C-alpha cells in the first residue's frame, strides 16, 4: 500500500501534460499567497514524495480522542502533524471552515483517491436517516461512506468509532453503531479506549509513516502490539492479587498500600490494553496506580458492564477466571491459591492467543 506519490506522479498517471502540471503549480502558488518568484520551489516540492495524507472525520463523539492524540509524548504531536502525516481534514485542528473546507475535502479525496488514510472518531447514528449527526448539512453516515470509499485504510479511533461507544449504551437512543458496522471491504484498524492511550494513537500513524503499511492486527482488528495483553497480566499490583491482598473499601489500609482493586470492581482481568505496561504519560500512571479500578474502557460494550464497583464474578463477562474469595482464601491458602489462579489465567491467555492466531484477518486484508 504505497502512498508516497508526488503530485507530478499523479499527473503522469492520469496522462496529464507537464504544461497542465505547471499551470496547477502557478495556481497553487497564488492560493498559498506566495510571491511568483517562489514558483520554482512549489514545482520542486510537487515533484517530490508526499507525506501520507490523513482525513479525520468526527461523528458522535466528545473530542476526547483528539485531545488524547495531541497529548502524545513520543512522537510529539507537532512532529506527527508536521512531519509524519499531512492532516488535510480535521474538524478540531484545521484552520478552514465551511464551504472552503468541504471543497478542500473533496479535492483531497480526488487527488489522493485510494491513497489516503481515513481516521474516524465517534459513533455513527443511523436512526431517522442519520439526522442526529449532521455535518455540512448532510448526515455523518453519508459523509463517512463517501470518504471511506476511496480510503487506503481506515482507523477507528476510540471506543465510539470501534464499538459504538457511550451513545450506543442501552437504550442507544440514536441507534449509534461502530464505523465497521457501516463500512467494509477495507483494512480497518480498531484502536479502542475511552480515550486510547496517546502514544498508542500516534504509534498507529507512525507505524504507517515508518513502514508504509498498517501494523499487524489481532482478530478484532486491534494492533497486536498494544492490545495483546490483559491489563491484569501487566499490572504492577498483580502480586497482591496472587497473594489475596485486596482493597476492601476505598481509602482503607490496603488502598493506601496499593493492594489489588479486584474487589472494587476492577475490569483489569477482562481488558486488553497497554495501560499496565506502557501506562499513561510515558509510564507516569494509569487508573489502577491512581487507586481506581479499570473500567474496561477499551472493551466492547463496556458501558453496559456496569455497575462499575461490582466485582467481575457478579456481572456477565466472558472471561471470569475464579472468584476473589477463592484466590484470597485468607492467609493460609494464599500462596497455593495464587499459584492456582495464576495457572488458570495463563491457560486463558494461551487459549486466547491460539484463537487469535486462528482467525486473524477476519476484518479484511492486511497491508
Amino acid at each position: 500500500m504505497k502512498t508516497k506519490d508526488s503530485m507530478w506522479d499523479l499527473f503522469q498517471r492520469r496522462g496529464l501534460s507537464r504544461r497542465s502540471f505547471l499551470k496547477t503549480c502557478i495556481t497553487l502558488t497564488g492560493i498559498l499567497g506566495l510571491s511568483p518568484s517562489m514558483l520554482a520551489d512549489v514545482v520542486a516540492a510537487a515533484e517530490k514524495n508526499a507525506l501520507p495524507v490523513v482525513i479525520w472525520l468526527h461523528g458522535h463523539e466528545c473530542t476526547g480522542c483528539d485531545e488524547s492524540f495531541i497529548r502524545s509524548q513520543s512522537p510529539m504531536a507537532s512532529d506527527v502533524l508536521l512531519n509524519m502525516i499531512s492532516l488535510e481534514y480535521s474538524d478540531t485542528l484545521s484552520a478552514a471552515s465551511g464551504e472552503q473546507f468541504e471543497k478542500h475535502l473533496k479535492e483531497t479525496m480526488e487527488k489522493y483517491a485510494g491513497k489516503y488514510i481515513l481516521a474516524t472518531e465517534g459513533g455513527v447514528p443511523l436512526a431517522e436517516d442519520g439526522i442526529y449527526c449532521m455535518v455540512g448539512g448532510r448526515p455523518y453516515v453519508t459523509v463517512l461512506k463517501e470518504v471511506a470509499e476511496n480510503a487506503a485504510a481506515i482507523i477507528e479511533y476510540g471506543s465510539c468509532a470501534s464499538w459504538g461507544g457511550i451513545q450506543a449504551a442501552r437504550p442507544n437512543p440514536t441507534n449509534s453503531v461502530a464505523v465497521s458496522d457501516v463500512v467494509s471491504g477495507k483494512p480497518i484498524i480498531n484502536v479502542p479506549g475511552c480515550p486510547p492511550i496517546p502514544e498508542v494513537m500516534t504509534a498507529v500513524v507512525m507505524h504507517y509513516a515508518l513502514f508504509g503499511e498498517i501494523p499487524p492486527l489481532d482478530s478484532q482488528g486491534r494492533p497486536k502490539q498494544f492490545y495483546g495483553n490483559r491489563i491484569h497480566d501487566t499490572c504492577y499490583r498483580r502480586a497482591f492479587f496472587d497473594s489475596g491482598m485486596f482493597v476492601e473499601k476505598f481509602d482503607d489500609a490496603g488502598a493506601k498500600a496499593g493492594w489489588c482493586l479486584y474487589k472494587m470492581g476492577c475490569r483489569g482481568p477482562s481488558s486488553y490494553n497497554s495501560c499496565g505496561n506502557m501506562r499513561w504519560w510515558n509510564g507516569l500512571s494509569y487508573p489502577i496506580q491512581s487507586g481506581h479500578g479499570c473500567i474496561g474502557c477499551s472493551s466492547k460494550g463496556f458501558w453496559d458492564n456496569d455497575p462499575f464497583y461490582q466485582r467481575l464474578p457478579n456481572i456477565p463477562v466472558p472471561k471470569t477466571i475464579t472468584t476473589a474469595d477463592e484466590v484470597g482464601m485468607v492467609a493460609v491458602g494464599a500462596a497455593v491459591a495464587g499459584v492456582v489462579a495464576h495457572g488458570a489465567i495463563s491457560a486463558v491467555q494461551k487459549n486466547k492467543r491460539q484463537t487469535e492466531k486462528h482467525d486473524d484477518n477476519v476484518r479484511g486484508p492486511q497491508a
Partner: protein
Amino acid sequence: MKRVVVDPVTRIEGHLRVEIKVDEASGKVQDALSSGTAWRGIELVVKDRDPRDAWAFVQRICGVCTTAHALSSLRAVEDALSIEIPKNANYIRNIMAATQNVHDHLVHFYHLHALDWVSPVEALKADPAATAALQNTVLEKYQLPVTGPQDFNFDAYPKDFPKATSTYFAAVRDKVKKIVESGQLGIFAGHYWDHPDYTVLPPEVHLMAVAHYLNMLDRQREIVVPHVVFGGKNPHPHYIVGGMPCSISMNDMNAPVNSERLALVDQSVSMALDLVNYFYLPDILAIGDIFVKNGFVDGGGLAKERVMGFGDFPDEPYSGIANGDFHKKLLLRCNGVVENFGKGIESASYFDLEAKDFSDPAVINEGVEHSWYSYPENKNLHPWDGVTNPQFTGPKEGDKTDWKYLDEEGKYSWIKTPKWRGKMTEVGPLARYIIIYTKVKRGIIQPTWAEKMIVDQIEAVSKVLNLPPEVWLPTTVGRTATRALEAQVFANMNKYFLDKLIANIKNGDTATANLDKWEPESWPKESKGVGLHEAPRGALSHWVVIKDGKIANYQAVVPTTWNACPRDDQAGHGAYEACMMDTKVKIADKPLEVLRGVRSFDPCIACSTHLYNASGKEVSVVNTDPYFKG
C-alpha cells in the same frame, strides 16, 4: 443582502452550523443563526444506572472539558445523598478543576482560536532577528503586576521560557516555508489566508505566535499531569462519589499519592504558571492591544447587556449545595447576574443568584420556539418539568438530509433556549470577570485573594489598553483576553490548593474519601441533588433524582446551551447570535470576523438531553437541554 452558511464550524468541540445575512455594502450582519446539528442522548443512557457510576458516564459528554461534567455529577449525587467530602478530596478536586481550566484555556487559544488572529503565511514575511527583539519587548511590556499566594515555591528559575533568538525564529520560519512550498498544507489548508484582517498584526507577531502554537502543542500535555497522578489518566480521569480514589500514604511507594507524586504535581503546577505568565498572557495582550488599537472593539453582543455565573471553588468542604452552604465557602463568588455592564459600572445592575433560585421555575426555564421540539401550548418550562416531544421540521430550503438554508422563522437547532427570568444571558470567563468586578467595585463582597487578583488584572489591562473596562471587556477581544487572565488565576489556584493539601497532610490528615454513605442501603428511598461548577466555558449545572438506589432522573444545563441557543421571539437572540450581529464583515463569503467572534466563546457542542427511541416516540420525560456541554 447575502446569506452565507458556515458548516461545519471547525476548531471547536462538536457540530455547529452558523448562517448569517450580510448587507454587503455596509458589512453589517443583519441576522445570524446558530444551530447545533447533533445530539447523543447521554441523560437517557445514565437513567436507571448506579448513581455512583454517573460521573463516568456524564464525563463522556465532553473530552475537551473532561473533568467538568464528572465534577458536576459528583457534586449533584453528593448533594442528593448529603455527603461531605474530606478536606484532601476537596483540595485535590479543586486542583483538577483549576488544572482543567488552565489547560483548556491555553489549548483553546493556541490550537483552536489563534488561527483567527494569526496566519502562517504572514509569518513568512517576518524577520527572525526582529521577531526575537519583539519577543523581548512583549515579555517586558505585557507582564501584569499581580501575584497569587504561595507557601512553598520549589521552582528555582522559570523552566519554560520563550526562546527569543533569531536562530530559533529562523528555524520555525523555514519550517513553515517548507510546509507552504510543499503544497501539502495539512491543517493549514484551504483557509481564507488572504483576508485583510491577517494584516492587522505585523509579520513578526505572526511568526512569534506560530512558534508558540507549535511550542505549546508539545508542552500542553505537561499541564494535566495532576489529572494523571490523581485520576490515572487524561482525558477522562477517575473519581469516586464521596471523595477521591487516590489514597495518600507517606509510607508506601505503591500508594497513589506520596511525596514523589506530590513532587510531580508541584512541578507541573509551576510549569503551568510559567506557560501562562510567559507565553499565553503576554501573547494575548500583545495581539489584543494591536487589535483594539485598530478599532476591533466589537463582538460584545449580549455580554454588554446581561451575563450570569454560578460561583465555584469551595475553599473548604461544604455540607450541601441546595442548603446554601456551598455558596458560603467559595473563592470565586461569581454567582449572580449583571445587566448593562456595557454602559459602565455605575449604570450596571446586579441580581443575586442563590441555591434556592435553582429550583424556582420563575428564575430558570427553557423554551423551544426555535428548537426541534414542541412543548404543550408552547410554554416555557423549568428543567424539572420538561417534556420531550421531538419535532424535526427540516430546513427552510433543501431536504431532511441535504440542507441548503435553515429556517430562522421556524425551528432550526437541537439546542433549546434557556432563560434567566425570561431573559437571554451570556456565561463564561467574561461573564465571571464582569460579575466579580461589579460585585467587588460596588462593595457587594469583600474580595478573596482570587477575586482581588481578578480586579487587579482588569485594572492593569485597562491601563495597558488605555480604555475603561466597560469598553474592552464586552468584546470579542475581551472574551478571549479574560480567558488568558483567568488561566493566570487558575494557575495560582493550583498552587494555593496544593499548598493547602500539603499542609493538611502535614497535620496528619490523609483521608481522601468519605464512605459513610457508600452502600445504597444507607441512602434515602428518594432524594434530589444539584451540582454546580464553573466549567471552562461557563456556568454548568447537573440535577439528579435518585430513587431506590438508581438514577430516576438526570438533567444538565450547560454553558454552551446558554450561549449557543437559538433566538426567542420575546427575549431576542442568544449570545452567539448577538455576537455575530455585533460584528462587521469585510468579505461576505469569507466571514472570518464572525467565526472569530463565535470561537471567542470556545464552543463546545456535543450532546443532547432530549431523548427519543428510534421511531421518534417519547421514551423519557427526563429533559432539560439538548446540549450537555461545558
